[in-house]
């Protein structure tokens, strides 16, 4: 399929496409043999477009509906993220809709918290209770003690929840970003001045240097990355080289041309070591670096003070030999990789959502170090380079009506410490909520609303939440299933599953160009469940006053229609196609005036001068603004001093657990078959969970065969993995792809509740991971924890 | 004629005439095992084969092992008897029926195990309604039913004069049955002539059929491409194995019959000695085949990836213990016992036979399961552990066989009375002739001749 027919196909399917000369299409689709769309229709069946909810990828789905029952899902061929394809999570998603363990009506706790005894109540009773409880707290002048924690928050639900809390008067809108995406966003902001995940034009890159994070299994959005992988392997004349840096031999590493097994948490050192080699070779983009970056060379500020630049830092601190000692990567490989990266243009250094960035307390610096490589070779906003994600234009929300109670509440500090001096760049710190609330620091939470999130399971030391819950007055959960967390709730107000509700979905950064998908009911709701958006609107009405006034919409669909009314596509049309996209990415160049929309745009404390910051002026400005001084750095676990604080640098991982007592390092990771901790009750996914080790339906620990031999552990033995925080029993899998000094355990199992297939199966590594928070972004750190392993 | 023979017909009819408490206890015991087996089968039928230890890739286990085992054992009788008849081995006479009955009763038990093994026994008639001629299983159905038919005839023909004897000597409810089955046998010369011709023809016919049966059984395995199965040697290997285990089974049957029916006078140490010799030859042959089979695969490079993995599993892996115990105690120990004349005593041959019968079952297991547990493609290797269902049905299979045998031995003389008589007569005539020809040396020869007969 050539470009013209591709565009024609898009046009024919109702997706808007504008062609302008200087625009380069970000092509990933259409090659010979890629077959047709939705399948052939037999009598009595329809195909309903909707959007997947199994991960944040936002893939388009076409659901085959026969006699009112959804029987099969296919990828929506018009959706640019997945283009007719669906991953195993999506393909198994009907097992969510028709899961026998769904909650079928509102429940009120009948026993003690966590006891698991429930009483069925009506929606009217449930609503009355929520309204009265929230009203009481608000009337008592403590609206800030109400928090909403959320996990998979998509589209307008994000705005709705934020607005609800704003009108109610609570700053505690707590996302799960600190468990995943936040570090990469901060790294992007501090260097390029864009507060978003990076989007990569993978299809046109010639060299991919991917740091950690299992790009093909858990990259963002996975279907886009995997599609691009096929494209760069065989969909074009040259077959780009892919190098994966990961302590663990992931499937991504296996599918790469080269695996660089690295000491966990030392990715920053490797990135800067590569920068060192590239600079020494003189192979960097001298024009770009000289004219469109800041802080490469040493510089003098307005006050006449001399500052160290990136080049000096890298040359002084990161010679190959030293880097090799830190990272365990041989010197020869460092210089070879550097040469390959600098000469195979366009080359991309890829920041993961997780993995490397969560491997140490210097995650934001690691992200910045990795991203610096892209600037070094000038690969910003070019074909095959880093793109800046664009979003569809939605009609702005009208101003929230805030009364005095609301204003007062909003002036309170956040419960999680995000944005404080301690975590200046965090916007949410999920994992600290439990301890802070329990300690009353700065105040105890009185009410907590949980929306598609399961902190007891998902947060390191999630058991802390159990303690915190006991001190709270009122906990409401909106999940369609029982979970580890909602066992402690007072009310469970089950939402529809995503096959029964309306919602828009903006895929995370990836395509570059704007995409919005529409989730819509493919079948009538099976049970007496309700859209949480509608529930919140009803609660707002019940609370009255400014809260009610802020929500002039009857239901969530009205909000959607309002927000999407200027999209250029009618609601009916959107329902028919399930997606709107503008599949053109407008690459710019530094000489172009639009350059300012891709570099420096989101800076608040540094000039929006279109320069990429090797020296992170945004961070410096922020520190000055917040009054963070050298004296505060120790408390933030930042070991660097002076100019180094504002330069990408390597912070040695903070190892927990004594090295002699806990000689191995624990590494946790995500699988393709892992649906964000919600796959536990999907039997189809359980049954094909660990492909590379052949383990299903349970938790395993990947141990290097030699290490296992030394420990007297044989293949398939049950072993204890113990950290100072506790121990879990898992099955030992001898895996040559595990570093001899590490143990790898995937997430997914170890649920205390959640249905017949999830419950009491395997173990959750989060229970033995200490809750450690990275300084800048507030991210939870997931690796570099000492453990010992012994036979059970 | 009576006074001419030393054969006391009554002695052989005694077990048929007098049915004691022991018989009923035995039958009750066997029936209870069979009832338990029926329950197991019902449970399996209701629940599905999932309650067995069968899995993927070990799709076949105890049932197919039993199938091959029982079909193998069946070669004891008809084939061995036919060969002995054709070679006119005089000492065969007390043995033939003991052996032939094994054939007739093991074949249905073997076939029954196929029924246990299929997922849909209710559709078993599809084999007849929709046969697919290329399938070795269909060949098997053909050859086994042919063998069963031939064996039944072959058992029946020499039984006719003895049935007539029963008819004449035993009254009661069975007389009518004997009358029908005796087909009006009066022992006339014409009848005898026809009978002998019939037996002669059957003896010839039955040999190729018997050979075909176990060849075809081997082809169930040999016709697949599986490592350890896909072997040209499998036909003869299985046939030899079948005769091997069959003779051992026949020796056991002889020993049991001798003991239970007090037939020390008829089944003499000499019979065990001769059968032991035959067994020794087959032990040697079977060791030879086994050695040839594995060496060909193993030689030089340890086989292809899958074969190598299979051999590793057998020689040093999870099946090694079973394998080596089998080789030593199933083949070499019996071989050594049987190689010495002292070892071919009744006790020696029985010990050797017990070992051989048991380990030939194990050998069939070793053929079926390890090969299945090693796939060509790198799947996880399979593991098989039989559950109570398979054990129960295996026990029930043996019980069915023993029950049929016991009942048979109480219905009909378990040794061929008329043939014994005839043999004695022949021998006497021969001895007399010889005595006439070599008058001075006559006396010792005569005693030799009767010894041969005895």
């Amino acid at each position, binding site marked *: 399929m050539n470009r013209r027919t591709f565009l024609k196909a898009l046009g024919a399917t109702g997706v808007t496409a504008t062609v302008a000369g200087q625009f380069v299409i970000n092509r990933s689709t259409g090659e010979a043999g890629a077959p047709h769309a939705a399948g052939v229709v037999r009598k009595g069946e329809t195909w309903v477009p909707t959007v997947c909810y199994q991960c944040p990828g936002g893939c388009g789905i076409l659901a085959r509906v026969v006699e009112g029952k959804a029987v099969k899902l296919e990828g929506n061929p018009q959706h640019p993220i997945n283009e007719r394809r669906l991953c195993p999570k999506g393909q198994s998603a009907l097992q969510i809709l028709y899961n026998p363990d769904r909650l079928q009506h509102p429940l009120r706790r009948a026993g003690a918290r966590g006891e698991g005894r429930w009483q069925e109540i009506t929606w009217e009773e449930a609503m009355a209770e929520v309204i009265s409880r929230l009203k009481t707290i608000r009337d008592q002048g403590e609206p800030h003690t109400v928090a909403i924690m959320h996990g998979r928050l998509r589209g307008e639900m994000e705005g709705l929840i934020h607005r609800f809390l704003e009108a109610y008067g609570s700053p505690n809108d707590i996302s799960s970003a600190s468990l995943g995406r936040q570090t990469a966003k901060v790294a992007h902001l501090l260097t390029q001045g864009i507060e978003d995940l990076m989007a990569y034009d993978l299809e046109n890159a010639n060299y991919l240097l991917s740091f950690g994070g299992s790009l093909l299994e858990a990259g963002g959005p996975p279907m886009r990355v995997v599609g691009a992988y096929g494209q760069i392997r065989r969909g074009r004349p040259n077959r780009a080289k892919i190098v994966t840096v990961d302590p663990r031999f992931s499937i991504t590493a296996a599918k790469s041309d080269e695996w660089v097994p690295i000491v966990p948490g030392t990715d920053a050192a490797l990135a800067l070591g590569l920068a060192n080699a590239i600079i020494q070779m003189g192979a960097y983009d001298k024009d770009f670096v000289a004219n469109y970056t800041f802080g490469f060379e040493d510089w003098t500020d307005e006050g006449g003070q001399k500052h160290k630049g990136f080049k000096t830092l890298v040359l002084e601190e990161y010679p190959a030999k030293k880097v090799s000692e830190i990272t365990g990567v041989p010197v020869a490989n460092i210089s070879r990789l550097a040469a390959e990266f600098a000469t195979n243009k366009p080359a991309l250094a890829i920041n993961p959502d997780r993995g490397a960035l969560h491997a140490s307390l210097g995650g934001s610096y690691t992200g910045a170090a990795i991203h610096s490589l892209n600037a070094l070779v000038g690969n910003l906003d070019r074909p095959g380079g880093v793109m800046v994600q664009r979003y569809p234009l939605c009609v702005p929300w009208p101003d929230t009506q805030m009364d005095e109670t609301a204003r007062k509440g909003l002036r309170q500090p956040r419960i999680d410490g995000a944005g404080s001096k301690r975590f200046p760049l965090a916007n949410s710190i999920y994992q600290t909520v439990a301890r802070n609330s329990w300690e009353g620091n700065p105040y105890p939470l009185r009410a907590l609303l949980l929306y598609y999130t399961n902190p007891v399971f998902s947060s390191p030391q999630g058991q802390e939440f159990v303690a915190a819950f006991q001190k709270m007055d009122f906990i409401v959960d909106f999940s369609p299933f029982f979970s580890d967390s909602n066992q402690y709730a007072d009310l469970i107000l089950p939402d529809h599953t995503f096959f029964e509700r309306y919602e828009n979905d903006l895929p995370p950064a990836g395509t570059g160009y704007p995409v919005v998908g529409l989730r819509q009911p493919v079948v009538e709701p099976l049970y007496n469940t309700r859209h949480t958006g509608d529930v919140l609107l009803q609660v707002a009405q019940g609370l009255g006053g400014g809260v009610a006034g802020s929500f002039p919409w009857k239901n969530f669909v009205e909000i959607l229609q309002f927000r999407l009314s200027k999209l250029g596509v009618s609601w009916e049309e959107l329902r028919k196609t399930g997606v709107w996209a503008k599949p053109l990415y407008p690459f710019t160049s530094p000489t172009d005036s639009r350059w300012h929309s891709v570099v420096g745009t989101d800076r608040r404390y540094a000039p929006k001068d279109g320069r990429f910051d090797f020296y992170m002026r945004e961070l410096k400005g922020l520190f000055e603004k917040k009054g963070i001084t050298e004296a505060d750095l120790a408390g933030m676990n930042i070991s660097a001093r002076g100019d180094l604080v504002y330069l990408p640098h390597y912070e040695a991982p903070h190892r927990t657990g004594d090295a002699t007592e806990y000689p191995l390092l624990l590494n946790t990771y995500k699988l393709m078959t892992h649906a964000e901790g919600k796959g536990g009750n999907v039997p189809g996914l359980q049954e094909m969970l660990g492909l590379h080790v052949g383990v299903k339906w349970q938790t395993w620990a990947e141990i290097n065969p030699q290490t296992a031999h030394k420990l007297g552990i044989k293949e398939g033995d049950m072993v204890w993995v113990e950290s100072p925080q506790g121990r879990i029993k898992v099955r030992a899998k001898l895996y040559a792809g595990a570093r001899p000094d590490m143990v790898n355990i995937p997430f997914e199992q170890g649920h205390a509740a959640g249905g017949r297939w999830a419950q009491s199966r395997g173990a959750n590594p989060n229970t033995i991971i200490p809750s450690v928070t990275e300084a800048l972004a507030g991210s939870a750190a997931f690796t570099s924890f000492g453990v010992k392993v012994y036979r059970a | 004629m009576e006074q001419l023979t030393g054969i006391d017909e009554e002695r052989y009819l005694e077990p048929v005439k007098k049915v004691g408490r022991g018989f009923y206890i035995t039958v009750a015991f066997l029936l209870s095992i069979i009832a338990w087996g029926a329950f197991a089968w019902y449970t399996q039928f209701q629940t599905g084969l999932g309650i067995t230890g069968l899995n993927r890739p070990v799709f076949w286990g105890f049932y197919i092992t039993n199938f091959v085992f029982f079909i193998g054992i069946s070669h004891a009788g008809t084939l061995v008897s036919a060969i002995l008849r054709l070679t006119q081995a005089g000492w065969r006479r007390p043995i033939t029926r003991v052996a032939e009955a094994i054939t007739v009763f093991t074949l249905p038990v073997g076939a029954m195990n196929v029924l246990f093994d299929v997922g849909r026994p209710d559709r078993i008639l599809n084999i007849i309604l929709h046969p697919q001629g290329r399938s070795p299983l269909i060949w098997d159905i053909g050859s086994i039913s042919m063998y069963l038919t031939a064996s039944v005839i072959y058992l029946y023909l020499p039984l006719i004069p003895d049935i007539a004897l029963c008819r004449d000597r035993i009254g009661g409810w069975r007389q009518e049955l004997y009358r029908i089955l005796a087909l009006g046998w009066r022992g006339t010369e014409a009848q005898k002539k026809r009978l002998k011709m019939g037996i002669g023809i059957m003896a010839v016919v039955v040999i190729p059929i018997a050979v075909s049966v176990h060849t075809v059984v081997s082809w169930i395995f040999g*016709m697949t491409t599986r490592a350890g199965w896909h072997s040209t040697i499998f036909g003869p290997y299985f046939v030899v194995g079948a005769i091997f285990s069959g003779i051992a089974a026949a020796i056991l049957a002889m020993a049991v019959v001798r003991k239970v029916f007090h037939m020390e006078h008829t089944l003499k140490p000499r019979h065990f000695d001769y059968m032991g010799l035959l067994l020794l030859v087959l032990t040697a042959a079977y060791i030879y085949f086994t050695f040839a089979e594995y060496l060909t695969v193993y030689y030089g490079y340890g086989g292809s990836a899958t074969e190598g993995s299979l051999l590793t599993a057998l020689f040093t892996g999870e099946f090694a213990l079973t394998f080596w115990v089998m080789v030593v105690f199933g083949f070499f120990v019996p071989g050594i016992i049987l190689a010495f004349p002292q070892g071919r005593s009744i006790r020696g041959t029985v010990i050797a036979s017990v070992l051989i019968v048991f380990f030939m079952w194990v050998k069939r297991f070793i053929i079926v399961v390890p090969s299945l547990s090693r796939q060509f493609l790198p799947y996880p290797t399979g593991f098989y552990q039989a559950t109570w269902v398979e054990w129960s049905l295996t026990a029930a299979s043996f019980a069915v066989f023993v029950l049929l045998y016991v009942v048979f031995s109480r219905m009909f003389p378990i040794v061929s009375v008329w043939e014994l008589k005839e043999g004695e007569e022949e021998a006497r005539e021969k001895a007399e002739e010889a005595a006439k020809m070599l008058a001075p040396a006559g006396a010792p020869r005569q005693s030799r001749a009767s010894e041969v007969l005895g």
Partner: protein
Amino acid sequence: MTRWGMVIDLDKCVACQGCTAACRAENNVPFQGPEGTAQGRAMFWNEVIPVVEGEYPDVKARFFPRPCMHCERPPCVFVCPVGATYQDEDGVVRQNYSRCIGCRFCTVACPYGVRYFNWFKPNFPEPMVAYTNPDPEVPVRPKGIVEKCVFCIQRINKAKEKAAAEGRELKDGDIAPACVQTCTGRARYFGDLDNPDSTVSRLVKSTRAFRLLEELGTHPKVYYLMEG
């Protein structure tokens, strides 16, 4: 003549198992649960097989998705005593679910291990049974019989029906089995090997093309394209 065949480009496959899941959903393949899976009884008409070789740090891992090979000389068809498995006129090796007696001769004869036995009654607890594919070609199988990949025969039939309704011939790309349609790396291709212009015909001529266990003489109609 039509000869349906498949090509799987291992260079594009990322071992995501999307094919496995799609196949299971399309063809009503029941799951077996933890105990059954531990016993190797899990059913995947289209299974991805991992091969991890070498020692740290020189590790290699290969993954190959394995549907039925639809051999031109299928051992399973030869050995089936009742003709329950057969090759249709387009070369697809199919299964007659109402004929099969469950002897499992085919499962032991198949060198690729593509055939699965229903050890129990298929497990679709209420209300999961709602999502079973209503196409008559893929009924939920009873216990005690063998089942396998049939190249999504229901989709082949539907495409034929559609082409017939539109009064045209089938064309290359009209048919996508569930695994091909969902393949995340776009690594799978389906088409007529007898049509010299089809994508699969073009791809099998590649120097990267090979088939599994070719030495057995089964002549598979599923081709793989080597990595690298």
